[in-house]
């Protein structure tokens, strides 16, 4: 079982994901440089947080044109797991792999804090280790995490159980307090909060493990076909 973390110019949570998976959870994990075409077989690819290409113009707008992204799309199309955290979530919406978009926080400020999330659907590769309605505390650090999506799409997402995490106290103005979603096929996750920042007692919080462990359990249990 292998994790791959894509490194774009300007990524800065790549190393945090790496440490969380490798040091804390003992997983096999590698960095994937943005400028490669060939991508090995990974079971789960992570687009980490940070400011890819400076996040100039719009967050995550340029990263989809990196050479590696064709292969990442193929990976996702095969039904394999693709996770976008923070900037990674923004990139996934820019690529159209997830619906909607992320705009500036309602208060127009960058917010770094630890917030309470509610798990809305535990029947996914990303949440199977959680209980339904469980509250987990996960850090956020973003200026543009205000999720917007049209009503029609939102209805669809609700019906499909694509809304995975909601904020208990909405920090950024997201519609329906949305903090994290997945695609229809439930193999692509996008979330603004950073589970990789909450994997150690030393840092005061290890709730992030619920999410990363869910992924590991899912992968260990073999592919679930729906």
């Amino acid at each position, binding site marked *: 079982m292998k994790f791959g973390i894509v490194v774009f110019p300007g990524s800065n949570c790549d190393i945090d994901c790496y440490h969380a998976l490798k040091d804390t959870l003992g997983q096999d994990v590698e960095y994937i440089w943005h400028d490669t075409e060939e991508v090995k077989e990974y079971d789960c690819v992570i687009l980490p947080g940070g400011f890819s290409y400076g996040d100039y*113009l719009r967050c995550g*707008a340029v990263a989809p*044109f990196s050479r590696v992204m064709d292969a990442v799309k193929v990976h996702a199309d095969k039904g394999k797991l693709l996770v976008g955290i923070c900037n990674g979530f923004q990139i996934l919406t820019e690529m159209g792999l997830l619906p909607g*978009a992320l*705009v*500036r*926080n309602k208060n*127009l400020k960058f917010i770094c804090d630890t917030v309470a999330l509610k798990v809305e659907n535990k029947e996914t590769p990303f949440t199977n280790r959680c209980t339904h309605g469980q509250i987990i505390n996960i850090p956020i650090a973003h200026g543009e995490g205000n999720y917007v999506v049209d009503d029609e799409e939102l209805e669809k997402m609700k019906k499909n159980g694509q809304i995975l995490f909601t904020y208990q106290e909405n920090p950024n*103005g997201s519609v329906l307090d949305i903090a994290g979603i997945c695609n229809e096929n439930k193999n692509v996750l996008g979330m603004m909060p950073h589970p990789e920042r909450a994997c150690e007692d030393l840092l005061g919080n290890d709730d992030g493990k619920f999410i990363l462990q869910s992924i590991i359990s899912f992968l260990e249990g073999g592919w679930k076909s729906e």
Partner: protein
Amino acid sequence: MKAKVYVTPKKSIADPQGNAIGRALNKIGYDKVEDVRIGKLIEIELGQITKEEAEVQLKEMCEKLLANTVIEQYSFEIE
């Protein structure tokens, strides 16, 4: 050749920055201001290229990168 690209948030999409600026303008006395929306003005210097070509390319650039058509609309002018 020079081009100007205008990218603005779609009507249906909230514009927190525009709202904040609108409120601030009201607060400092401009009470006629009813609505403010903030978009982008992108000025592009294009080299030797025909106007037709420029139009094709600009449209592509907007669709691909300069605007996120889920939330934004765009238009452009070539000088």
